[in-house]
């Protein structure tokens, strides 16, 4: 029961998914003093996760690279304001999330308002077809299927799912990043997993079902 165990021990999760990075603190301090090489160190430490977040949210390499660039340029402008109240990666991710959301809003895509995306939907009730949907998924999905299913999530769901289940952020950190309540983060994550369940079930052929 990995997710439950992880949530029961948030500090263990933090250590596993977001461990302290050797040399990061020093690089932050030096970058805040104007050291370009230190900023490059920070870029190299965090580029993969920022890029992956952008890529998962946009599904397009060129756009993801553009937004990664924007996020780090914004980091460069604002790094002097980092006070260490939260983990640097959380702070940077929040910046990247905002860059992504701004971009999505500019594109005029539906469900790109975070407020709208995080608003409780009308699909919270019990599933009427639970009895016909017994164990299907266990052992039946791979990375590719999951990637595709995640791409099929609405942006708001996708964002919380990626931040929590993939990146390992805690609900309180996500709430801080997205400026929403912890309860809202939990609710969105649950809806994301429910939607993924539906999407993944569609990819599992009847023959493959146990």
């Amino acid at each position, binding site marked *: *029961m990995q997710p439950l165990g992880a949530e029961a021990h948030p500090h263990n999760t933090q250590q596993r998914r977001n461990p302290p990075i050797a040399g990061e603190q020093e690089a932050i301090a030096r970058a805040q003093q104007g050291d370009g090489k230190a900023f490059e160190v920070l870029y190299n430490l965090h580029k993969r996760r920022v890029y992956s977040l952008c890529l998962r949210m946009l599904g397009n390499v060129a756009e993801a690279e553009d937004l990664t660039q924007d996020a780090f340029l914004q980091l460069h402008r604002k790094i002097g304001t980092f006070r260490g109240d939260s983990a640097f990666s959380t702070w940077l991710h929040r910046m990247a999330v905002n860059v992504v959301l701004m971009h999505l809003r500019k594109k005029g895509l539906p469900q790109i308002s975070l407020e709208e995306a995080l608003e409780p939907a009308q699909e919270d009730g019990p599933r009427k077809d639970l009895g016909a949907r017994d164990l299907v998924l266990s052992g039946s999905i791979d990375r590719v299927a999951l990637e595709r299913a995640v791409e099929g999530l609405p942006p708001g769901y996708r964002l919380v799912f990626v931040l929590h289940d993939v990146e390992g952020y805690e609900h309180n950190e996500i709430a801080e990043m997205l400026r929403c309540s912890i309860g809202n983060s939990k609710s969105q994550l649950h809806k994301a997993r429910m939607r993924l369940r539906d999407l993944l079930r569609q990819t599992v052929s009847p023959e493959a079902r146990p």
Partner: protein
Amino acid sequence: MNDSRKNTQHGASKDCHDFQAHLPELFGSGVELGHHPHLAECAACSALVRDLEYIAAQAKLLLPLHDPSPAVWENIESALSKTGGKGKRTT
């Protein structure tokens, strides 16, 4: 067979409704759901919980694997040099 089990043959019972309404909070709290009394009597909700736990566990497969191309850093460097703002403090 109790009501909860009976009802899940064709749809969700009130017990299922109550249990599912609390699922986001239950997952988020770290409570051991396997011992929840409703799951002992409801195969459908047990399956639902197992699927959701499986999805969450499989999400680790999606940890970042790729770096952005070197052009991204080159563009950042270029932009910083144009603005003359290499490492300049903003506060």
